[in-house]
Structures are given as structure tokens and as C-alpha cells.
């Protein structure tokens, strides 16, 4: 297993090197003089000179690349043109919000999606199955941002059950330790703060989790249906095993293999979706941060952000492979 992980980590190296080259080239491929395009309309000669100095755009490319990679290795993902803040610092501020949101959304998707897919497969062709399949189809085709807007419209604006946005009511004087607001509320035993943060999570998490939910339902349904037809399930029945044992050990365990892979693939979707969802709900996470960077054409931020996301995405996929290997012994051997 360890060898498997190490090999997968080594495979990541060329991908990351390639990506860093591409991102390096990307900023330099912006039309016109890089310093000028970075500054945009507000470019002055003094500003251009300062940028050239900070970013070293006037030095040879190879040298620039080496110092860029050197900075990356030191954890320096660049500095915002707009605010002058290091990108890494902003990440530390904003990332907990996104993690909080993404994890809640994924939990929502998995906790509801897997049992629903399982039930649908067991009742193939009946009304429950038809409803679930139709619902999941609608879930897949509804754009995240539209669903977010719709949820906000109905449950916040019209019904007033849930807050329209933000992570927490600013009137609550909450202490923030980790920047995971719900966790902070529990840590400091400020229960009202914790519940308030949770209430703010509901709509964004449902909006963000719906597409993964729909996909997980479909994959689970297909996988369970496949496994139910497998010979080893028949063997299990012929052994006289209890229905619960068959479901758990023989059906679910095998059906979860494709589901785990799918959950891993959702990571990318969640990160993309978070950008849109956070924008709709003014949820101050990495998504809103990216949105601001896009609208202000803050390229160093975008550059650092994409590299960071890619790194994260690769690590998540590695984690998925490890989990897969834990479930399926055949993968470990391969």
C-alpha cells in the first residue's frame, strides 16, 4: 500500500511541473507587456517599473521561472496586484469557509445519495425508482448558480426561513479561532454563533450539493443494479446468509467502488461550483475571492489560485485511489 501511495505521488511530480510551466507561461502570454496588462488601465510608468522589479519581468525567462518555482517551494504563491497581500495569506483566511461549505455539501450529497441510489436499484422499474431517476436527471441539468438563486429566492426572500447570504449574522459577536465558523462556535461554546453559522450554510450547501447528489444517486443505482446481478450475490443467497449481511458485505461493498471514484471526481465540481455558489450567497470563501480576482483581473492571484486548486485536486484524487485500494484488493496488487 505504501509503495502504491509513493508511486502515485511520484506520478504527480511531472503533472505539477508541467502545470507550473503552463501557469508561468500564462501570465507572460497575456497580450502586451506583462507588467502593463497586470496593471490594466491604471498603468503608469512608475507602476510598470515597480511591477517589473517585483516580478522580475525584465530578467531572462529561465531565471524568472527558477525564482518562480523557488518561491512556490517556499510556499509563496504570489502577491495580489490589487491589495498587495500575499496570496497564501488570503488562502488561509478564506479557505476554511470553502472547506466548510464543500464538506457540508458533499455530506449532504453522500448521506442522501447513496441510500437513495441503493433503494432505487432495489426497486427498479417501480415508482420510487422512476421518481429518483427523474429527480436526479433534473438535478444534473440545473445550473448551480440558477439553483442557488432559486433557493435564495424561495427560502430566504419569499419565505424568510433562512438567511439570504453571508457566513454568519454580523450582529452576533462571535469569537473566531480557526475560521471554521461552526467549529469555532462549538470550541468557544458560543452555541448561538454555531447555529447561526449552520443556518447560513444550509442553502449554499444544498445548492452546491445538488449536482453531486444527483450524480451519486445515478452511479450508486447503476452500481448496485450491476452487483445485484453478480454471481457472488447468488452464492451469498445460496449460503442462506441474512439479508443484512448480503447487503452490507456483498452488495454495498462492491457497489461502493465506482461510487468512491465518483465522489473523488466531485471534488473538482465542488470547487468550481463553490465559486458560483459563494458568489450568489456572498459567502466569503475562496470562491468569492476568486470572483473578485477575476473581475479585477488580478492575475497573480488567479495564477496562485489555480495552482493551489490543482494541487488540492490531485491530492484528493490520490486520497480516492488510496480508499479504493483499501476497498478493492485487486487494485493494490496491480
Amino acid at each position: 500500500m505504501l509503495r502504491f501511495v509513493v508511486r502515485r505521488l511520484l506520478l504527480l511530480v511531472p503533472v505539477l511541473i508541467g502545470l507550473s510551466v503552463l501557469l508561468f507561461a500564462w501570465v507572460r502570454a497575456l497580450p502586451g507587456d506583462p507588467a502593463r496588462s497586470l496593471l490594466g488601465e491604471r498603468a503608469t510608468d512608475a507602476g510598470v517599473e515597480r511591477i517589473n522589479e517585483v516580478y522580475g519581468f525584465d530578467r531572462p525567462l529561465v531565471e524568472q521561472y527558477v525564482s518562480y518555482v523557488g518561491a512556490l517551494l517556499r510556499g509563496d504563491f504570489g502577491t495580489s496586484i490589487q491589495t498587495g497581500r500575499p496570496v497564501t495569506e488570503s488562502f488561509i483566511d478564506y479557505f476554511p469557509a470553502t472547506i466548510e461549505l464543500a464538506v457540508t455539501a458533499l455530506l449532504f450529497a453522500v448521506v442522501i445519495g447513496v441510500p437513495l441510489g441503493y433503494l432505487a436499484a432495489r426497486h427498479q422499474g417501480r415508482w420510487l425508482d422512476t421518481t429518483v431517476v427523474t429527480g436526479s436527471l433534473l438535478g444534473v441539468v440545473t445550473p448551480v448558480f440558477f439553483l442557488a438563486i432559486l433557493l435564495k429566492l424561495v427560502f430566504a426572500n419569499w419565505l424568510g426561513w433562512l438567511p439570504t447570504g453571508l457566513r454568519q449574522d454580523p450582529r452576533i459577536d462571535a469569537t473566531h479561532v480557526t475560521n471554521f465558523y461552526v467549529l469555532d462556535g462549538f470550541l468557544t461554546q458560543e452555541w448561538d454563533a454555531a447555529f447561526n453559522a449552520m443556518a447560513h450554510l444550509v442553502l449554499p450547501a444544498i445548492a452546491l450539493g445538488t449536482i453531486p447528489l444527483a450524480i451519486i444517486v445515478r452511479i450508486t443505482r447503476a452500481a448496485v443494479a450491476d452487483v445485484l446481478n453478480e454471481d457472488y450475490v447468488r452464492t451469498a443467497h445460496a449460503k442462506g446468509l441474512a439479508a443484512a449481511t448480503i447487503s452490507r458485505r456483498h452488495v454495498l461493498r462492491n457497489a461502493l467502488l465506482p461510487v468512491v471514484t465518483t465522489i473523488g471526481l466531485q471534488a473538482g465540481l465542488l470547487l468550481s461550483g463553490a465559486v458560483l455558489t459563494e458568489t450568489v450567497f456572498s459567502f466569503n470563501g475562496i470562491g468569492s475571492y476568486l470572483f473578485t480576482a477575476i473581475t479585477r483581473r488580478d492575475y497573480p492571484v488567479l495564477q496562485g489560485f489555480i495552482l493551489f486548486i490543482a494541487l488540492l485536486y490531485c491530492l484528493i484524487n490520490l486520497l480516492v485511489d488510496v480508499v479504493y485500494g483499501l476497498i478493492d484488493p485487486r487494485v493494490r496488487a496491480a
Partner: protein
Amino acid sequence: MAVPTTTSPTPEPVPGGGAGPATPGAPLLEVRDLRVRFTGRDRAVTAVDEVSFTVSPGQNVGLVGESGSGKSVTSMAVMGLLPRRGVEVSGQILFDGEDLLLADRKRLDRLRGREVAMVFQDPMTSLNPVVPVGTQIGEVLQRHFGMRRKERRERAAELLAKVGIPDPRRRLDDHPHQLSGGMRQRVLIAIALACEPRLLIADEPTTALDVTIQAQVLDVLAELVDEAGAALLLITHDLGVVAGVCDEVNVMYAGRIVEQAPRRPLFRSPAHPYTGGLLASIPRLDTPRGRPLTPIPGSPTQTVPWTDACAFSPRCAHADDTCRTTSPRLEHADGRGLRCFHPLTTPAALTKEL
């Protein structure tokens, strides 16, 4: 052809059985008038009809036929493994006097694996790929005997040793993909025999294996069944396998039994033209070189419904208008059953006519 194993056809007392011993002479399994219909959205297919046969305690009975003859469906019906939806089963399947078709799921689960066990055709797909084989053997023991973990491992290792797997203790933690096809089939046999069932159903247990291993696995199976005093219902398309193992043989064609007889009389003088054809198509060591095999003409898909003809008539050299317009019935005489208007007299006559 393997030497026939000596199994006395007389019923033996059942060792290790959970339920009370059956009345002496009473059959262990009695299938009466079994009929299985698959009902689709717009049409129904009768896969098995008018099937009746018995298996006495300790007896080895063969169910022989080509693919599509309904022999596997019959075995699945006995095990209660047919899907509930889209399948109509009628008749009686009496196990030790109890009708399995009337038993509920709970009762079936107590019998399956404990009193009746099954070995399936394809060892490559019949074991769960993500669970160690030791656990797959152990779970039957846990289910039916309530054995504890240590006991289970102990017993599983013994069973593996019994079916001829070397270094059984180490193999317990192996996953199916680490074993060869022959080994996996041995594991399946070990699972089936783990609770010392009184009836073992083996559905083409050697078909998916290498020819060189087929005989070995079959020998292990026959030996262990014999040793445990269990009865065996062997489902196969291979008369050679039957000749080596079975006391009684039922030949099926297109969902019905066409001939049933004890092994020796059947092989000596097959009465149904289909049985005759099967026997004539077996290559024998004593046939002179160069003589072609004699296949049965036509293919099993060329059938007419049993309802108003003999289903075998399109392929039968003896068929006349009676065969094509009247459905033959299974007639019993001299301990043999036969469904034919024009039985063969001797095998020699058959060879000439074909």
C-alpha cells in the same frame, strides 16, 4: 472416462443433519410436477414443465441436457434462487417432506447453506472479489453454527485442506483473484460442504475449468460428498461426468424430462433417441481412428412446443406424424421413465439409423 465411484444406492443414515432423520426409504428431495414460466412484458416462456424426480439420502442423481434444456432453472428453483418478479413457479419441491415453494424467505435462509448447498458453474465470478476467501467460508459457519472467529478460521482451514488446497492457513487471507480457477472452485466446494449439508446441488461444477483440472475437481467433489454421506444433484451437459459419478440419471430436453433411469441400464441401452444421440456423440478411446463422431442433427433451438408434439421431433430420425402432432407422456416401466413414441431398442440400432 472416469471409473464409476462406488456409492451404494441404498439410503444411508444422515450424519450431522440438523433436522430429524427422514423415514427410511423416503426420498430426501422430491420434485413433483415442477413448472417454471418466465413472464415477460408481452410474452411468456415455459422453461421447465412436468419435471418430477427424486433424490434419496446419500444418492447421486444427474440432471443432463444441452444448454436451454431447463436443467439449471430446475436447480435454481430447488434453491429458491429464481427472481420473484416475472417468474411463475408451480408444482412441489419437497425437501424432507417440506414444500420449499411454500417456505418463506426466513425458512429458506435457514435451509440454504445448512441442509441444501450449491456449487455454481463459474468459479471466477461466484466468489466476492473484495472479501478474503477465509471470510467467505467463515460466514456460512457463523450464520448456521454461530461459530466464533477463532473456531471459524480453524474450521475454514480444515475445509480448505480437505478440498486439496495446499498451505490452507495462509490461503485464508487471500482474495479470490490470487487463486487459480481450479482453486476457486475448490473454495466454492469447501463453502458448500462447510455445514455438512444433506443435499449438494452442483451446477456444471467443472465446465468453466481447464480440461486437465476438471477430473481432479470432480473427484474431490464426489469423494467429499460420499464421505459426508450427502446426496448429490449433479447438473451437467456431459454424460461422461454422469457416468463417473451418478447412480440415477434424468435426461432433459426443452424443459421436460425425456428419460430417467439408473446409470447402468441407461448407458447400456438408452431408450430415448435423444439420449442415444448424446451417447453416440461422445468420443471413446476404443473408437477406431478416423471414424467421425456422430452428432445429433439440428440444433437445440429447433424445437416445437411440447404442447402438441414431441419437442425433439424436428431433430429425430425416428419421428413420424404421431410425433409431430401428439405430445408424448412420461411412461414408467421397470424403474425407468421414458417420453417417446418410438423408443430405441438397442444402441446398435441407433447408430445404424443415424
